[in-house]
């Protein structure tokens, strides 16, 4: 449903030009959960901004359902890393979640139902009339997720959404996003620098290589569903995939990729 087609992004011009994204090509299928993983500073945020239509690409294009993205599409929602700066502090949880729905001009009752359903899905019903700054970081990010869900996007982009919360909260949020993704049947593109997270969450992983950013490789993740923080992570396949992605990120450009089988064999000695 989403194609990133030879996307290039260069900041500045002439001698000072910085090539943030070299030449990116990948696709995201209907209802797929795709993680884009790469080292810090490899243009992941730039990529997401181009995908969401916030930044015009220098060359190439992003297509959503065969339509060129040249501004934020109506069928797309975005969850930012900095929850405290993407929620409106002068609005309550309810107002925050309801705010994007104004665009859709729904009947009041229907909009209210969408808001309450989304907030229930992230288990914050008790906090509907609180302000975001009265909540913990993990809860604030759940509000941002509820806002994205109530908007009923067909595709949800997430920019390192769990990078600024503690480990336990992070695990809870990972399970939450898998759950609501099933419930809402939404396609997810999830950008992260955390390899464990990418393997745990995704159906497919797009591994990026830094400066200028290009796709290193695309991996299918065939771990059993539903995922579980303990059981899934105990699986030998999880460990081997994790090690494989790790090596893939470390690998220099032009080197031949290791065989998946070889990676499995090396699972007892994690990288």
């Amino acid at each position, binding site marked *: 449903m989403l194609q990133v087609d030879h996307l290039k992004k260069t900041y500045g011009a002439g001698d000072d030009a910085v090539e943030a994204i070299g030449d990116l090509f990948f696709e995201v299928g209907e209802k797929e959960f795709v993680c884009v993983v790469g080292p810090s500073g490899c243009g992941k945020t730039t990529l997401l*901004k181009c995908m*969401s239509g*916030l930044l015009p690409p220098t060359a190439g294009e992003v297509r959503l359902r065969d339509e060129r993205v040249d*501004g*934020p599409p*109506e069928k*797309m*929602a*975005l969850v*930012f890393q*900095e929850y*405290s*700066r*993407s929620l*409106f*502090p*002068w609005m309550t949880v309810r107002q925050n979640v309801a*705010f*994007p729905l*104004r*665009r859709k001009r729904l009947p009041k009752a229907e909009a209210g139902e969408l808001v309450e359903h989304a907030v229930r899905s992230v288990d914050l019903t008790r906090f509907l009339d609180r*302000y*975001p*700054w*009265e909540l913990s970081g993990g809860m604030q990010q759940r509000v941002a997720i509820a*806002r994205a869900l109530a*908007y009923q996007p067909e595709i949800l982009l997430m920019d390192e959404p769990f990078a600024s919360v503690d480990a336990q909260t992070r695990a809870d949020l990972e399970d939450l996003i898998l759950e609501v993704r099933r419930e809402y049947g939404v396609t997810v593109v999830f950008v992260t620098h955390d390899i464990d997270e990418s393997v745990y969450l995704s159906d497919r992983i797009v591994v990026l290589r830094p400066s200028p950013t290009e796709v290193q490789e695309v991996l299918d993740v065939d771990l059993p569903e539903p995922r579980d923080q303990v059981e899934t992570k105990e699986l030998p396949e999880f460990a081997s995939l994790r090690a494989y992605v790790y090596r893939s990120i470390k690998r220099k450009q032009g080197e031949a990729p290791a065989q998946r089988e070889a990676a499995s064999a090396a699972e007892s000695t994690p990288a």
Partner: protein
Amino acid sequence: MTRRTRLLAAALEVIVPLAALAVLWVWSANQSSYYYPPLSDVLSTFNDTWIFERFGSDVVPSLLRMAAGFSIAVVLGVAFGLVLGRSRRARIGATPIIEFLRAIPPPALLPFGILVIGVGNSMKVFIIAFVCVWPVLLNTIDGAAGVDPTLEDTTRVYGIGRRDSLLRVILPAAGPQIFAGVRTAVSLALILMVISEMVASTNGIGYFVLQAQRSFAIPEMWSGILLLGILGYLLNGAVVLVERRVLRWHRGARASALG
């Protein structure tokens, strides 16, 4: 702050001004100077003059002029500030003009105001508005231009319309700066009210203070000055109260970000 230190602070806040007042009372009681009448005289004159003898004839006109000038300044300052804050080009073009106009010392405009607008209320309202608009305008520009980029991206991603984004995102986001400008504007409004009433006026508190001085009614003059001080204090307090209410989210958000 613990409960004890808070109590102590509250006590100090009441005790120190009262003590100052007592000192002034005792000191002025023994004054033989014509220019420094005993505080008791000033207070009784205050009582006779302002409660409520001249309240309708002088205080109300003064307050109305100030309210009108101040309101016009806030409305214009916020409206133009939002526009200029959101458009870099308009800002670059407008900045020299704004800097020039606000650099004009306000009393210098009085002769012009009297000549062109006349000596009536409009002139005084104009002067007050002209001076109060700059802090509101400049602060609103700052606030509207400095909205957090993540909030702006969020607004764009969710396709928030122009009207909603201006009134429900940019305006509240600029709120803290707007109120900083409004606080400055309130003090300026009071100052300009007094100045404008001292020139070519037939009523108002400023007029009264000047007339009292000219007719050597010294306790009356002091009672007018005292009234102006009290008004300034109350007006500032009112703005702070409104600000606390409107910007409750800001205090809360800041407190949670710090702690």
